[in-house]
């Protein structure tokens, strides 16, 4: 019998362990940088620094996406080296301010619609109008101007007087996500619910596709979600028809406001508008769904509507159009779902929602503006949109994107995508001025209304009425806007 010396055995184990670690690193895309560093011989004249909260190391999909973008862009632009820097979403603005003050800003970065307007008003973003008018066409023939994008995607990236500070890269919208298994079960006995589905050409029900206008109006929505709610023997909600979350409730207001012809704020960001009669009517509608119709399970901070939905305990929840991939991942593909916009209220017209968008922006302290624009043209072109669809499964903000074979194929493979374009087209602009500060003022009051609605209606709550509470919240938000607008004027005076 051959005896393997102990030292050889140890070396063998060591090599195997090393190989295993390298395989993990390689599979996770973490060796890409080393390989590229080895491949590079001559440093390129332009180092283009790009910030993003998306990260090549998030997972394989993001790794592949960033690798494809970098490889294609650098091949076509031999003078540019792309350097990605990942910054967590939560610290993005803070770190951006620090980098700019410290003279180490990125050349360009992905910016959320959440902050873009504020960043521009603080003087951190370079206007893009001159670049768009001078050189608006990417090499694949796709244009980068207003006409090329969904109108709802082009509403987040410019000021009221037409200064464009970002190029749309992603569009998202709030939507209703429906559990089609629950609906199909109920549809067997209920014509009303059966009507929510698309019909095949032969007239049979297509249980994979929910109609965009499946729910006609608020009353219809109440009827539907009441039918879909089931209760335990002791009267608790077992399966919610629609899940409402009171904590952070200000987030559920904008899309319902839009359905009733109301808005959270004016476009100029000077006053709150959610306490209009239509806004107050909306607040009553949401509160009654919970307290009178009892279509939602109890408010619980640790359980989000998405958690309930993924447990199969809610027939319908509000979510973003981006949520499909997350639901599939978290339910391992078992949940069968579809998406619609929100039905109109008494003062509203047609299916509505709110949209928001991410955009590529150029730092006003970038020294590589021309190369940054080349990069923007690439990632915001049809080609860039299709790369995101291929690797990340995201829909795009471009009109031509929805005419492509790739999108049709994606809809065939994932039927929940079928209404996404219409949902995005039905969107008003999400609240956009000093969102955190406005939420800090409004949210506790909206939360109080939802938590104490019966007392408030009877005049026994912390506010004399729902109307009084909404007016108080709006007054507080107006103070935020006043203070912010004064500051913006001051910043403009300071900036040469």
């Amino acid at each position, binding site marked *: 019998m051959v005896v393997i010396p102990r030292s050889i055995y140890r070396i063998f184990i060591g090599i195997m362990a090393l190989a295993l670690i390298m395989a993990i690193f390689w599979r996770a895309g973490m060796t890409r940088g080393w390989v590229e560093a080895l491949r590079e011989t001559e440093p390129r004249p332009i180092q283009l620094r790009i910030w993003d909260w998306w990260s090549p190391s998030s997972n394989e999909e993001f790794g592949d996406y960033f690798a494809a973008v970098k490889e294609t862009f650098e091949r076509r632009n031999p003078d540019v080296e792309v350097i990605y820097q990942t910054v967590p979403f939560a610290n993005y603005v803070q770190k951006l*301010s620090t980098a700019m003050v410290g003279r180490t800003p990125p050349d360009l970065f992905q910016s959320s619609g959440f902050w873009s307007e504020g960043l521009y008003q603080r003087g951190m973003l370079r206007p893009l109008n001159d670049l768009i008018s001078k050189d608006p066409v990417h090499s694949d023939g796709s244009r980068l101007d207003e006409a090329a994008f969904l109108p709802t995607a082009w509403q987040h990236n410019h000021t009221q007087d037409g200064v464009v500070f970002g190029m749309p890269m992603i569009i998202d919208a709030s939507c209703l996500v429906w559990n089609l298994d629950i609906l199909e079960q109920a549809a067997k006995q209920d014509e009303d619910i059966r009507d929510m589905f698309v019909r095949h050409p032969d007239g049979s029900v297509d249980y994979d596709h929910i109609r965009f206008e499946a729910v006609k109006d608020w009353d219809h929505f109440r009827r539907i979600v009441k039918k879909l709610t089931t209760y335990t023997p002791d009267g608790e909600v077992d399966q919610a028809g629609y899940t409402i979350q009171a904590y952070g409730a200000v987030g559920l207001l904008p899309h319902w406001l839009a359905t009733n012809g109301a808005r959270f704020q004016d476009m100029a960001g000077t006053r709150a508008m959610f306490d209009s009669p239509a806004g107050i009517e909306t607040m009553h509608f949401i509160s009654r769904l919970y307290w009178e119709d009892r279509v939602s399970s109890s408010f619980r*901070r640790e359980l989000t509507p998405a958690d309930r939905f993924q447990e199969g305990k809610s027939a319908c929840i509000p979510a973003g159009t981006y949520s499909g991939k997350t639901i599939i991942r978290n339910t391992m593909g078992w949940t069968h779902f579809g998406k619609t916009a929100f039905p109109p209220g008494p003062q509203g017209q047609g299916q509505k929602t709110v949209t928001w968008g991410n955009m590529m922006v150029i730092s006003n302290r970038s020294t590589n503006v021309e190369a940054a624009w080349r990069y923007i043209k690439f990632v915001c072109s049809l080609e860039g949109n299709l790369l995101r669809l291929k690797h990340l499964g995201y829909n795009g903000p471009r009109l031509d994107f929805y005419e492509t074979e790739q999108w049709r194929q994606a809809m065939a493979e994932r039927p929940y995508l079928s209404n996404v374009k219409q949902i995005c087209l039905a969107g008003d602009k999400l609240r956009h001025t000093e969102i955190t*500060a406005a939420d800090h003022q409004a949210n*506790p009051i909206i939360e109080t209304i939802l938590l104490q609605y019966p007392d408030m209606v009877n005049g026994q709550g912390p506010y004399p009425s729902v109307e009084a509470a909404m007016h108080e919240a709006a007054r507080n938000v107006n103070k935020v806007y006043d203070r912010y607008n004064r*500051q913006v004027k001051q*910043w403009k005076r300071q900036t040469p």
Partner: protein
Amino acid sequence: MAVSLRQKLVPYAYIAPAMGITVVFSVVSMGISFYASFHDYDAFVGASAFVGLDNYRRALLEPDSYFWLSMRNTMFYVAMSVVGVLITALPLALVCQRIRKGQALFRTLYFLPSITPGVVLALVFFHIFGIWGGLLDSAATALPALAILGVWSGAGYNMVIFLAGLADIPQHLYDAAKVDGANRWHQFRHITIPMLRNTLVFVTVMTIISAFQVFTSVYIMTNGGPERSTEVITFTIFINAFSIAGQMGFASAAAWLLFAVIFVFVFIQMRIFKSRNVYDG
């Protein structure tokens, strides 16, 4: 023997790196914060207008600053934490001291929460409190729930401090008391408590200081809600400093006001510590 200049300078050279770090990261940043508190200040734009004491006035007098509301919440939290720590850490220390076998194991177990990251504890307790009937879902119970977490995570650390204090009490005092017929309660009342006075003061003051600075659990578990019932002063400062444009000056003013309140407690601590020996006379 004369000491050369070089010998005199050596100690300063040793402390220079630590001093440098302290000056840059504490003194300078505190100075900037003090300067910012008198200005409209934005992290990117920098200081714009000098506003004098206006940020302090806003914090103290304007209702939408929520300074007093968050200060009131903080005070409640501090009171619950101090009482909670004293009624858990001291009995734990007394029990632990009497254990003959495995004292190190118990000490380690109780100490574990103190070395576990606050974010992890907050996430775990977020779900535990949800299972326990939604303690974080009501304005009446959310702040006490956060205090329970604060007490739980601080009890082990304070127990170790008490154990050290207990170990310092001379055994002959107990022996003499026993000879005089003192029972357990008498020994505790007339020997343990007086001899632990300095430790008690230290634990109380340190608990007060750390409770005034509670932030992680609020940020992770309640975000100040429901209905602002858990909005503590550090949360208000954080939101204004880092999430709202141009409010760094206001946040700095609120931070200095918090400093003033904590300073009062530190001052009291220093006064009490002036007399260190209990049985001097």
